[in-house]
């Protein structure tokens, strides 16, 4: 039933609204868990339903393009499920106590989820803008959670840049509407195809402006400058949730490139490629320079962003397919590593997650094992999901042979750097001792289970790589042949003419 598409937006929205007036935290937590459980059920349902054909929900019963539609295709519902999984892990982690380190965590968290769901499901470009704003304003609040000067400075930079980015988004939408006459994503493609001359040039400019805006969200070079400081300053569970935030940008680029620009020769591929190369380079540099384990994770996140840009910038279908697999992998693993970093930090009290020799950890074997799994996954070493994803991306350019060298150099080089850095980090955190062991506190289960499950997801994703890839291949196929999406949204008879 297509109405269910509204639920992922509505459930967290209503939950957040109900949470707002409560002063004490317990009822907020209960509401959060109930809402998330419902959200998970809906997400799984939508995910399974998307396998047949894109579900379309016309809000208010209004036909596209005059009304807003929500579209649950494979990609959208996948992103939804991914964000829900991440949210579940973060929620379990955060109720151990981090949610009390500031105000209004739970409503902001729910609103963030609502915004994410809206962004992943909407079929309208302006509605995507609104969704971005919802999730951004919530993220601003979450970013500040916990307080502190470092957090404030980086949050201010993050907010200002994103505000400027939002304005660019508006400019792009204005130009696009002016020349194409619609902002419905399914209709934009055919409308753009009709353009020529100056109209087409303006449209291309607008599309690239959108790429810049989404690139800012995704932290693509050179708009990656904010990520390290921002994520480094955020509270660990917030950073973990934000693993999906850069993916929103990636998602939007992907949506633009496939659903809107499918079949058009609006070449954003080269832009993505070069931005991807540079992003990987900066990410690798940042990993080398990091002084804290969460910073290492942040810059590895940047590397993964670059990797995705490289994959999606390829003309081959295999790039898309491998990129999607890698997208799922990196989101889960990065979040897991952030949370693990948080657990480690709690056991190294004066140093926290700083990469210096400290007192021995309370649970070295367990945390060490988790760290190893996470490191193997994130570096892209076999046999975990990171390797499989990178493998597919490495193979992808062989078909046409374009951009092969760059992609290989970037991916293999970044993996080497990550290997080098994480070996050093792990050796410092788990092996080196620079202080006598103090009073040792083992981590509560609530903080251990989320990273463990997220990292185990990498194992599961690797083990079930075949089925997962088949599903993602279908998703990639949908994206490359957007007729299905268009037909579902605006109907065959109208042939997509505005």
């Amino acid at each position: 039933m297509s109405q269910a598409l509204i639920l992922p937006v509505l459930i967290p929205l209503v939950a957040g609204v109900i949470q707002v007036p409560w002063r004490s935290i317990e009822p907020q937590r209960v509401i959060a868990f109930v809402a998330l459980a419902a959200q998970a059920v809906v997400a799984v349902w939508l995910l399974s339903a998307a396998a047949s054909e894109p579900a379309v929900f016309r809000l208010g019963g209004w036909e596209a393009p005059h009304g807003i539609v929500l579209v649950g295709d494979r990609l959208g519902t996948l992103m939804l499920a991914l964000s829900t999984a991440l949210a579940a892990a973060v929620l379990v982690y955060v109720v151990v106590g981090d949610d009390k380190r500031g105000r209004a965590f739970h409503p902001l968290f729910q609103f963030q989820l609502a915004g994410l769901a809206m962004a992943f499901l909407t079929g309208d470009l302006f509605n995507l803008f609104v969704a971005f704003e919802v999730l951004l304003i919530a993220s601003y609040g979450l970013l500040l959670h916990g307080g502190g000067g470092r957090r404030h400075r980086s949050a201010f930079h993050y907010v200002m840049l994103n505000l400027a980015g939002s304005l660019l988004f508006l400019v792009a939408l204005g130009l696009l509407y002016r020349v194409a006459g619609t902002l419905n994503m399914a209709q934009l493609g055919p409308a753009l195809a009709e353009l020529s001359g100056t109209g087409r040039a303006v449209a291309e400019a607008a599309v690239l402006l959108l790429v810049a805006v989404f690139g800012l969200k995704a932290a693509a070079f050179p708009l990656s400058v904010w990520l390290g400081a921002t994520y480094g300053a955020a509270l660990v569970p917030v950073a973990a949730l934000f693993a999906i935030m850069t993916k929103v940008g990636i998602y939007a680029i992907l949506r633009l490139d496939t659903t809107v620009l499918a079949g058009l020769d609006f070449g954003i591929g080269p832009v993505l490629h070069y931005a991807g190369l540079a992003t990987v380079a900066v990410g690798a540099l940042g990993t080398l320079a990091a002084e804290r384990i969460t910073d290492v994770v942040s810059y590895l996140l940047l590397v993964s962003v670059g990797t995705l840009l490289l994959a999606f910038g390829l003309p081959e279908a295999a790039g898309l397919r491998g990129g999607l697999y890698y997208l799922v992998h990196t989101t889960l693993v990065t979040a897991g590593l952030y949370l693990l970093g948080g657990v480690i930090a709690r056991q190294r009290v004066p140093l926290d997650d700083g990469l210096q020799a400290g007192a021995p950890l309370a649970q070295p074997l367990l945390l060490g094992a988790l760290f190893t799994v996470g490191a193997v996954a994130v570096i892209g070493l076999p046999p975990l999901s990171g390797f499989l994803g990178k493998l597919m991306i490495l193979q992808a350019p062989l078909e046409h042979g374009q951009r092969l060298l760059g992609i290989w150099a970037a991916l293999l080089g970044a993996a080497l750097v990550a290997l080098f850095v994480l070996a050093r980090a792990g050796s410092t955190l788990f092996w080196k001792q620079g202080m006598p062991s103090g009073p040792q506190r083992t981590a509560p289960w609530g903080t251990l289970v989320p990273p463990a499950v997220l990292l185990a997801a990498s194992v599961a994703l690797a083990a079930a790589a075949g089925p997962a890839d088949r599903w993602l291949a279908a998703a990639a196929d949908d994206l490359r042949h957007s007729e299905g999406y268009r037909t579902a949204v605006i109907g065959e008879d109208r042939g997509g003419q505005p």
Partner: protein
Amino acid sequence: MTLTVAFMVGWLTACGVYLLLRARTLPVILGLVLLSHAANLVLFLGGGVPAEVRPPLVGSGEGPMADPLPQALVLTAVVISFAMTAFVLILALRNRRSLKSDHVDGERRES
């Protein structure tokens, strides 16, 4: 006519960008305000700038009416811009306290 409105937008953009590149929070926020005017105008101009046009109120007279969609979109954008401005302004106040300066990077002492 179109050149005039394009000039308006471009000029506002230029002023906004210049302020956006300043070092203190308030001028930067003012730059954001100017830029949001520019962005709203661009969105608004998505409906074109016919010299003689009526408001999109059906049945209020004769003659061509303006495209209502960009107007509605700008309305939404205006509200969002306001919300964001309020938020970032108060964030700037918090920064001034925690970073002891109203510099955007919080580093230099205020004069």
